[in-house]
């Protein structure tokens, strides 16, 4: 396909000359007799090069050049100005207006041809770069979209992985509440029997004299019932059942807080509560392998963040810590490992530390632990997205930082910092800035 040249000159014979010459060089030529026409044709024909006479009535070449270069759709087209000999000022003004080159009239054909060829080369490289840019831009948009999808998939996967553990957390109180109710049912039957015996005694003793048979009857019923045992165990059964149901309530609430995150609103969040929710939701993962302690600084202000996302960050850190501690169990003295979570305020920041005495992170993988899909776990035990997601939430969505200190054989501490504005007069419900993803 031959390149297209737009020639602009108010003198018809020069236009004809240019057209004939350029067509003989193999170019396709479009002509304009004035500035306005030039701009129209530049937009509609999208030439590869514009040959532009400077001296024209109405819109002169310099102005046309300026407008072409100001138009984002046209600015990539090289402009060669046709100037009169001796007109240095025009040349300077033209180049300053954005022209790429100039040819003085009368022009030597070879020179004109060479300059046109040069301009075409410039246009071609520009086009190539523009195409690469477009592709990159599309790739970045695609990557952002995929990250969003991945985050969502991982959220679902987390919920799925947690579901089995949560089910167990709920099944356990469910079992003993049910057993306690069975016991209370029988206990009531015993107490009922006792009360009836009392009734019978009272019934037959209305006159004042006590019926001995009824008295014996009551005594033996009381003996069967084991009243001291009931007096002790009935209140305990009720109390323990209540505690079990409270536990279920807390877990369900924590799960609700954690998974109801499609409202992408930043609010001021009580860090302690976010940590506690995280611990509740993954309790089954650390319960048997580690003692978890928390140390919340009372001076920590409410932190602006997306609450469920902060819980998710802590969740992943605790899951990692649990795994590390579990892995270290064979080599450690008997007893559970430990995970400690501490919060404290720093100027401009809220800091959360999650420290474990697990295996520590080996030197060779330290640079990769935040990489997507990097995992040291077996197939089917998690897809290695936890730390990646935590990193994305802390750094990208909240402008904070996450790093770690570790020693193989001794343990690891993850340190998360979230920005806290000095002014506490921030608006509630600031919408998170820069969230990208499908509408």
């Amino acid at each position, binding site marked *: 396909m031959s390149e297209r040249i737009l020639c602009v000159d108010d003198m018809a014979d020069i236009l004809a000359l240019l057209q004939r010459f350029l067509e003989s060089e193999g170019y396709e030529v479009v002509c304009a007799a004035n500035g306005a026409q030039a701009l129209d044709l530049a937009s509609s024909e999208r030439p590869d090069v514009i040959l532009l006479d400077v001296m024209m009535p109405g819109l002169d070449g310099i102005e046309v050049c300026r407008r072409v270069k100001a138009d984002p759709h046209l600015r990539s087209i090289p402009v060669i100005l046709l100037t009169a000999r001796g007109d240095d000022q025009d040349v300077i003004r033209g180049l300053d207006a954005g022209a790429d080159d100039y040819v003085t009239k009368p022009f030597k054909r070879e020179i004109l041809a060479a300059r046109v060829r040069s301009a075409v080369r410039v246009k071609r490289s520009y086009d190539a770069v523009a195409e690469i840019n477009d592709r990159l831009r599309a790739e970045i948009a695609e990557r952002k979209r995929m990250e969003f999808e991945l985050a969502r998939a991982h959220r679902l996967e987390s919920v799925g992985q947690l579901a089995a553990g949560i089910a167990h957390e709920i099944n356990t109180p469910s079992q003993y509440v*049910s057993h*306690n109710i*069975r*016991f209370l049912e*029988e206990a009531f039957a015993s107490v009922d029997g006792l009360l009836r015996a009392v009734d019978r005694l009272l019934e037959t003793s209305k006159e004042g004299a006590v019926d001995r048979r009824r008295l014996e009857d009551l005594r033996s019923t009381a003996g069967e019932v084991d009243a001291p045992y009931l007096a002790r*165990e009935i209140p*305990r*059964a009720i109390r323990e059942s209540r505690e079990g149901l409270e536990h279920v309530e807390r877990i369900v609430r924590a799960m609700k807080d954690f998974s109801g995150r499609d409202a992408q609103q930043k609010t001021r969040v009580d860090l302690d509560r976010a940590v506690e929710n995280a611990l509740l939701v993954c309790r089954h993962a650390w*319960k*048997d392998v580690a003692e978890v302690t928390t140390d919340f600084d009372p001076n920590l202000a409410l932190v602006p963040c997306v609450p469920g996302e902060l819980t998710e960050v802590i969740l992943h850190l605790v899951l990692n810590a649990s795994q590390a501690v579990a892995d270290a169990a064979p080599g450690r003295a008997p007893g559970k490992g430990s995970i400690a979570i501490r919060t404290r305020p720093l100027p401009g920041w809220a800091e959360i530390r999650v420290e474990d005495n697990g295996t520590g992170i080996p030197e060779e993988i330290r640079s990769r632990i935040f990489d997507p899909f990097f995992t040291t776990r077996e197939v089917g035990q998690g897809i290695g997205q936890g730390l990646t997601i935590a990193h994305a939430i802390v750094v990208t969505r909240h402008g904070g930082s996450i790093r770690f200190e570790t020693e193989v054989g001794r343990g690891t501490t993850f340190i998360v910092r979230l920005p806290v504005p000095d002014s506490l007069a921030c608006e509630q419900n600031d919408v998170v800035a820069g969230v990208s993803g499908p509408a």
Partner: protein
Amino acid sequence: MSHTVLLVDDDDRVLNGLVRALRGQPFRIYTAKSGDEAKWVLKSQMVDVVVADEKMPGLSGSELLAWVADHRPEVVRIVLTGHATVETAIRAINRGAVFHFFTKPCNEFELSVVIHKALEQKDRLRQEQGQLAH
């Protein structure tokens, strides 16, 4: 002759619930809060049936029952688990040769039925062995 059942679970409330629900049953109940404590009881007492929770810190239910199979084979073994997966069941069966396998929440009536069946089986076996000895 009175029978004895040992219940093993790290959660106090679970143990209490089980003990209360099995209260009317014609067997004595011992409890242990860990695999190690259970071993201690088994070494020092006559126990007919052990019912153990799978998920405990330290020794798991199936690990405990594997030990019981090796050291106290005459004790009937039952496991309770909240994570009902095929692998857990197979592992429990292969390692500890459990008599029965329950998922949580476990119905106390079904548990007592299974315990009774286990005890009957034991008594029958003992009788047969007694007869063979003659």
